[in-house]
Structure formats: C-alpha cells, structure tokens
C-alpha cells in the first residue's frame, strides 16, 4: 500500500508539470511526440496502480485525500487507453497542418499544455476521494478543454466553445450546490474534512438526512449530467465535438463525458443507501438514459455532418450506460463494460472521421463517399467503427447492449426495454444508411487518395481488433475488475 501510495498524486502532478514543460517545446512535432510518449509512461504508472487495486484492494493515501478503488481504477484504465491512442493520433493528425504551417509552434505549445492540463484534471477527478476536489477537477477539465475546441479560431469554433463553456460551468455549478447539500445532509454525523470524503460517506454507520440527500442527488445528476451530455442537457455536445480538432473530439467523447458520468456513479450508492436501496436514484438515470437514446436517434437519422453524427452517438451511448446503471443488477456490469467499448470505439471513429475530413475538406457525409478507396486504412476503420457503434456483432458493443436488454427484462422493466430497442433500431436504420453510402457510393469528385504510413494502420485497426476480441472473449482479469467495480456500486452479480 505505502509503496503504491505515491502513484496517485503522481498521476495528477506529472501531467501538471508536463503541461508547464510543454510550453517550452521547440518544434510542434517535438511537442506532440513528448505528449504521446509522456502519456504512455504515465499510462504505465497508472497501469501499476490499477494492478495494485485489482490485487490488493483500494489504495488510499495522503490522509485520505487520494483514493483509488475498483470503480475508479477501471475508469482510470479506460482513460489511459483513450489518452494513449489520442496522443499518438495527434501526431498523425497534425502532420499535414504542420507541413503547411497552420499548426504553428505557438499553437502546438498551447495545445499540448492544455492537453496535459485536462489530462491532469481528469486524473484528479478519478483519484480524489474528496467530492469537493472531484468537483474542482471536473470544472477544471471544462475550462482547460474549452480552449482546445478553438485551437483554430473560427466563428463556429468560438460559438461552440462559448456554449460549451457556459453550459458546463452553469451545470457544474449546480453540481457543486448538490455537493454542498450532500455535505449538509451528512453534517449531523460527519464534520469538517470528513463531510465530503467519499469513503466516510459510504460508511454504513453514517446516517444521512434522506430529503437533503435526494435534493442533493438531483442537483448532482443535473449538474454532472450536463457535462456528461445526457439529454436534454446535451445541447453543447454536438457543437463542441464537431468543431474541435479530431484528437480533441476523440478525447471528449472518449472519456470527458465518462468523467462526468463517473461522478454521478460515485454518488449513486450513497443515495441508494440513504433511501433504502429502493432504486430511488436509479429511476432518474433510467429516465435520462432512455431520453438520451431517443433524442440521439432523432438527430442521427437526419444528420449529414459525420462528426455531429458521432457526437450524437456519444449521447446515445452515454444514455445506454446510464440506462444500464439505472437498471441495476446485471445492467451495472453491462454498463461498465459498455463504457470501455464505447470509449475505444468512439475514439477510433473520430480518428477516421478526422483524417478523412482533412482529405475531403468537408465533414459532409454526402460528399465523403467511397472512403475505403480514398484511404484504405482510415476509411475501413471509420466504417468498421460505425458498424460497431450501431451494435453489429461480433463487436463487443453488441454483447454489452444484449446484456443491458437482458437486465431490463430481468428487472421487468418492459417499457424501458421496448424504448431501448426502438431507439437502437432507429439509430441502426439511420446510421447504416450513412455508413453504406460512405463506403460504397461512387464519389462525384474523387479526392486524391490519402497516403498512409504502416504505423497508422496499427493505430487505426488496433482498437477495432480490441473490440472484436472483447466481443468474442473477455479476459478473466478484466471480467473480475468490472465485477469488482460493479460491487463498488453495490451490485454483486
């Protein structure tokens, strides 16, 4: 434990320091390479931490400020995976912009600094035991990533940034009110520092004022839900995702949303315990989840901008995760598994969309046709990930969605199951049409084929291969880790 303790602060400190350092980068390429490599190293450290948790139970250090249990460890692992992918992808993505001088050193430095900054902030969210600090982390991610959206200043990008900034700030402010209410609820039995410590709040001996807890949870759900992009609080999401550069979009939908959702998950068991485990809080998640799926479906059918399409897919899948958690039982397990699948898949699809967007000079799917010929690597990976996103077997998302359906039927939530299937069906029908025309429709004006390096193929196909593997075979450790994480949420399947 003690030996492992230093890792958690390091996970926050290292990126923070690197953020500062990367302001000194000489060339843009250097900045990006440093980013990628350093991220990988940090990921390895995090890996050790996760392994520690997996084998020897939760880590707690620095007087209980830092804390890592199975739930956060699992999310941490996903976070690292996504960031490593994005880090290397950034090198590929900005290559062309560097070549034609759009991506200057100044930009590169700022980009990399903000990148590490938000990295640090997300780590902070995951490793902090104190709900207040967690909140600080979330707000920090908002502020730092805001500028990532408009690395390239354009009216649309500015607008997206402004909406993102204001909506998330307001939302997260509400979340803070929620946290205060939670502290107030606990103030009868806890005081001072402990009032916001998750480990203390989870302590069964602590008695919380149920009414206040309920109010608090509603504030938390609305607040963090805004950041997580649950409908109808999702309005900023398509704008931000569509305007930011591909690596950023990938990171956004790959994990930023899950960070916020993670905060809700943290608070869920507290509420459930306080309200006598009658699924009082889960109900809310089910409703918001279903709503997100349906709203996403509405906009996916008539979408033409590929990045907005992917953004709405994020809304849909976050909704699916929320639904799964809300259903409880097997659903929680499935939802956590789905988190991993969605993050990997979504990152990949944004990679493909970004590269092809550069090649075609547009994100309009009506003009991005015959992608597999224009870029055998990125085209196939984009189509593949799109098919995976709409739940085609044998990709892992099919399994997790099947399990969520199973959970819904087991819990006798027949209406939820029906709406879930309807939403997925509409999404499938809508998105498949786009995918088919992108893959096979002969192009009106064929752009020059995109030349790709072998390493890129690795980057493009590894995630898909991973999804395929997970769809056919889940390694026992992963399974156990997810089960432990589900146990943190008070579910023992």
């Amino acid at each position, binding site marked *: 434990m003690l030996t492992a303790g230093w890792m958690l602060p390091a996970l926050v400190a290292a990126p923070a320091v690197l953020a500062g350092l990367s302001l000194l980068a000489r060339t843009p390429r250097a900045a990006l390479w440093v980013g990628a490599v350093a991220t990988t190293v940090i990921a390895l450290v995090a890996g050790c931490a996760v392994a520690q948790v997996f084998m020897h139970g939760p880590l707690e250090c620095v007087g209980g400020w830092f804390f890592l249990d199975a739930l956060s460890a699992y999310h941490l692992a996903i976070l690292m995976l996504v960031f490593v992918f994005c880090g290397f992808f950034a090198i590929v993505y900005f290559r062309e912009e560097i070549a034609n001088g759009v991506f200057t050193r100044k930009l590169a430095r700022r980009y990399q600094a903000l990148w590490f900054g938000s990295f640090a902030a997300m780590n902070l969210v995951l490793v902090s035991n104190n709900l207040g600090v967690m909140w600080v982390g979330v707000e920090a991610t908002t502020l730092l990533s805001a500028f990532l959206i408009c690395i390239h200043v354009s009216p649309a990008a500015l607008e997206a940034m402004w909406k993102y900034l204001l909506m998330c700030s*307001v939302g997260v402010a509400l979340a803070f009110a929620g946290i205060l209410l939670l502290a107030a609820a606990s103030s009868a039995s806890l005081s001072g520092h402990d009032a916001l410590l998750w480990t203390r709040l989870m302590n069964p001996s602590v008695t919380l004022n149920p009414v206040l807890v309920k109010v608090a949870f509603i504030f938390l759900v609305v607040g963090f839900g805004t950041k997580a992009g649950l409908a109808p609080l999702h309005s900023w999401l398509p704008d931000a995702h569509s305007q930011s550069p591909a690596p950023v979009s990938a990171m956004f939908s790959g994990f930023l949303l899950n960070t916020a959702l993670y905060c809700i998950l943290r608070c869920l068991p507290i509420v459930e315990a306080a309200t006598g485990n009658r699924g009082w809080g889960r109900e809310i998640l089910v409703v918001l989840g279903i709503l997100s799926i349906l709203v996403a479906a509405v906009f996916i059918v008539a979408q033409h901008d590929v990045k907005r399409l992917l953004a709405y897919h994020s809304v849909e899948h976050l909704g699916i995760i929320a639904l799964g958690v809300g259903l409880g039982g097997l659903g929680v397990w499935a939802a956590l598994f789905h988190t991993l699948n969605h993050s990997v898949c979504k990152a990949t699809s944004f990679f493909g969309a970004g590269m092809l967007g550069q090649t075609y000079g547009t994100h309009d799917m009506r003009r991005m046709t015959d992608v597999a010929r224009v870029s055998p690597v990125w085209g196939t990976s984009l189509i593949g990930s799109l098919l995976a996103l709409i739940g085609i077997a044998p990709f892992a998302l099919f399994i997790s969605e099947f399990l969520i359906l*199973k959970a819904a039927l087991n819990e006798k939530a027949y209406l939820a199951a029906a709406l879930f*299937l309807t939403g997925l069906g509409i999404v499938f029908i809508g998105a498949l049409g786009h995918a088919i025309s992108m893959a096979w429709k002969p192009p009106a004006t064929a752009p020059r084929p995109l030349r790709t390096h072998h390493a890129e193929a690795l980057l493009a196909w590894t995630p898909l291969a991973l999804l395929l593997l997970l769809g056919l075979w889940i390694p026992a450790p992963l399974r156990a880790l997810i089960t432990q994480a589900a146990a943190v949420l008070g579910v023992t399947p």
Partner: protein
Amino acid sequence: MTLILMALAIWFTTGVLCLAFARRPRLVQMIGPVGAVVGSLPALFDASRALLTGPVTSLYLPWSLPGANFAIGMDALSAFFTLPIVLICALAAIYGREYLRPYEGRKALGASWCMFNLLAGSMLLVVLARNAVLFLLAWEVMSLSSFFLVMFEGEKADVRRAGWTYLVATHIGTAFLLVMFVLLGQPSGSLDFDDFGQIAGTPAVASLAFVLAVVGFGTKAGFMPFHVWLPEAHPAAPSHVSAVMSGVMIKTGIYGLVRTLLWLGPPPLWWGYLLVVIGAVSGVLGVLFALAQHDLKRLLAYHSVENIGIIVLGLGVGLIGLGSHHPLVAALGFAGGLLHVVNHAIFKSLLFLGSGSVLHATGTREIDHLGGLLKSMPTTGATFMVGAAAISGLPPLNGFVSEFLIYFAAFSLLGASGIPVIVAALVAIVSLALIGGLAAACFTKAFGTIFLGEARSGHAKHAREAGPCMRAPLILLAGLCLIIGVSAPLVIRVIEPVVSQLAGATELGEWACTAALPLAIVACVGVGLLALFVMLATVRSALLARRLVDESGTWDCGYIAPTPRMQYTASSFADPLTRFFGPLLGTRRKFSGPRGFFPDSASYSTETPDMSRERFYKPVFGAVEGALSKFHWIQHGRLNLYILYIVLTLLALLAWKLGK
C-alpha cells in the same frame, strides 16, 4: 465433433487468409474455393454419420462472455440441416471460382471469398450452437458476411438499397430473437439450450416466445410479409452467393423455428393455424409475384418465398397434428416440411447457378431479352429444365415427394374431428394445388422464354456454354433431384430420427411405414414412367427411321416475315394470369401505343413492385421519419434556451421526485 471443429477451423482460417492475401486475386481464387470445399468434407462426413448411425455428440466448453458457453452439439436435427449447408456451399464455391474470374483485379475478391467462407462457417455454427449467445453471434456473423457479399457490386444504387434493406430487416428480426432468448433463459437463469425446456411450464410465455420466434426467424426465412428484403438482396448478390443464400441461408430461419418448437412444449392448435395461414399466404403470393417478374433472379427469389411457404405449410399441418393428437399427421407434416427444406435447397441452388451461367454468358437477367439458349448452352439448359420441373413439384423428381407428404398429411387431417382443423387442412390442400399449378406456369414461362424458341436480342445470340467448373455442380444437383425423387422410401428412413425428435418417437415406425408404401409406389411409377418414356421414344425413332424427316421454318400461319422479336415474351405469356390476379399484385403498366399514319416506336412495359414494401414499409418508414423530423427544433442553437432546458430539467426532476 473434432471433424466439425476441423471444418469450422478450415473455413474460418481460409477466410482470413483470403483477406490477408487480398492483393493477389489469383492466389485468393485458389485459397477461397479450395478451403470451402476441403472444409466441407469433414462436416459432410460427420453430419451424415450422425444422421445415419445417430449418436448425439456434443461439446461443452466454458466461455468468458457473460451467459455464454461454447456449447455445440450434433443431433439429428442439426445434422439434417448441416447436410444441405455443406453440400451447397461446396458446390457454390466450385462454381464461384469460375464465375468470379472476370472480376479478377477489378473487384476485391479477397474480401468476397473471406465473407463466403465466413458465411459457410457461421451457418454451420448456427445449426450446431447449443447456447444462445453463441447462436446469436453466429447468427449475426452470418447476416453480416452475407450482407457484404450482397454489396459485391455496391457502386450500383439499387444494390446499395438492397443491402440496406437486407441488413435492416435481418437486424430487426434479430431484435425479436434477443428478446425471445432472454425470455427462454429466464426460468433457469441460463442461456444454454439444454435449460430452455423449462419454459414449457408457462403456456402464456411459451406462446409469446413462439410469436417472437415466428417474427424473428420468419424475417430471415422470408415469411410474408417479412420477406421484403429477399427479392431485393438475392438478385443483387453474385449468383453463387444467391444460390447459398436462397438455398440454405434462409433455411437457418426454419431451423431456428423448429429448434424453438422443441423447447416450447405441447403446442396449442392456434400455432398450427397461424403457420398454415402464413404458409398459404407466402406460398400463393410468392408464386404470384414470381409470375409477374421478368428479372430472372428476382423471379427465383420470389420462388424462395413460395417454397418457404410450402415448408411452413408442412410444419403448420404438423403442429395441428400434434395439437389435435394425430401423431401420424404430425410426423407426416414435419417430414414433408423438412424434406422440402433439402429439396428446395437442391433445386433452388441449381436454378440460381443456372441463372448465373445465363447471366455470365449473356450479361442480362432480363428474361424477355433472351431465348434459344438451349442450343448454345445445352447442359445449362437441360439441368435448368430438370430444376424447373422439380420446383414445380412434378414427378418423378424430388419436389413432388415432399409436396406429396404434405398433401398426405393434410388429407389425413380431413379424417380428424373439429371443423377448424378440417378447414385448415382444406386451406393447406387448396393452396398447395394452386401453388403447384402456378409454379408450373411460372417455370414453363422462365424456361421456355430463356432456353427455347429463338434469341430475342443480341445478348442471347452470341452466348457460349459455361466452363466445366460451372457445369459440374449443375449436373450433380440435377442428378440429386432425380435420385431423391425415385429413392424417396429410403430418404424418409434417413429423416426418421429428425421427425421423431419433433413428433415424438413413439409413432416413428407407424408413420414411416404409412408413408413408405405410397412413396414406394410413387417411386415405381417414376421408374416405370422413365422406362415407358424410353420405350416410346425408341418406338418413335424406329417409326421415323425409314421415313423422310425434313427441316423447315416454323409454321407461320400465313404470316410473311416473322421475326424472333414477334415471339411470345415472358411478360405476355404470364399476362393472363397476372391480369386475373391483378388486384393482389398491383402491377404497373406503362404503354405508349403507335400514333399517326406513320407511327414510330411504341412501347409497353410492366413492373410489379413488392406489395408489402409499397403499401406497408415505405409509408411506415416515411411516417416515422416525418415524425422524427418534427423534433429538430430541440437543437435550435440558442444558448439561453439551452440553459433554460437545464433549469427546467432540474425543476422537473425536483417536482417529480419530491413533489409527493
């Protein structure tokens, strides 16, 4: 089991290899077909052994997916469905190698062969799977690989539409199956097939599961009105793929339905009635729509719907037999239905491969542009004629045997008590009779217009017979049609175990004996017929030997200058019938007649789009899309209102959860 695993391994690995060597079409053209054929041999051996000597082997490995186990088993039913899969896939592969040669270098043959072998493997896995998750995975891989095969010529708009329709339909079907399997798994909490039997205890749930199965599997099998993808997708695919899809892939739907029936316990009568109605509708409407088509492969696709209808009639009569406690009838009905599965697999793939050769040689699927091919393509023509006779259910070919068994069952049901049962039997009989007549009409039209008479266009004039690799499978399949036709009594001995699995083992001997005598006589008549025919033919030639035999033009009824284009076309041949059934078909006729004293070209064309697509699916999808588009204002871009959403959500939740 090891053999089966070997087959799966060979298929999947060769599939992946094809993808790996995609850059080298020649090599792929070797690996793909060879792999498909070699892989089929062990499976063929294992399946036939299981069917003949009847040991039920199975393999059960734990699997790390939640709820999943790698459980596969080979019982009579699986073996019975394995045989056609293996056979047709192998033959289609042999055929496909030559069929695809023109595309070498122009198309991604690597992907195509990869998907073909994946399709074969996944179909085998579907019929072997003994666990819901494994089954669903195999099921989805099957759909996906066949989808990619359909999209072979994806640059064409109609192919893209076909692919979209296909994948959407099959995926919606799968959704029903997901629900069904979860329901089946609930009593025992396990998704292994062996534990599904417990649902029989709750009739209501069993009925629900049955309906879900009918919709889910029916979509794959092509029951009306879920068949809408079928006439789109089968013509779009390359012919050897169409043969596999139409011959065996849609049968996996039948397999699923039958397998499900095994779990659901004693069937109430209405299940049987439902199936009989579906069968009658699919059969009659299927053949009628086929009659109205003039695209050869589309015509064949509709005949798949028709034959699925016949199969379902058999199953339906069988279920009624079970429900009304006539095990004999049940056995006969199931036997007929199941036997027709194999028969249809054989002659339908024969016909699709034949049509492929025609397409290959002439470059058109438009029946009305062809003609006189029998002279330039004798083998293809002869085998196609055999297939046509077989699919029309004419003795002494295999189609007659299975239809005969279904008739037999239905007629035996007439003796039963209960008006509804008798009516159902009568419906089955009448629809079978109608289907028989119409099918004959449709295939005399197809065969006559394509292979007989004179070439109607340049396409057909310069046709050349396909190569040996494309002819051999045709001959083999045509031979099978005849063999099964005349060896019926033995064949039913072979399918005894399967039927006993469905209808209960007790009546086994009885039904087989009951059916054996007539079938034996039918077989004798068949043989006698052939003998008589040979005799008369020799008599004829003997008579003509010493006489003057001359050649001239066809008697033109005094008309001066007949041209090939004046021949009766397929459309005109079918016109009286399509007009008679017009209300059911909704055929669109475009006619611009000759005008003026010196009329220039006149034209007449008919098109019969799918009824359910036009009248049901299109409007529904349109309505849904319209309804969805009504919600687009949500994302209007005004930040203030977005933040208002947040506030309202907050208030709504507070009011909802704390209001009381």
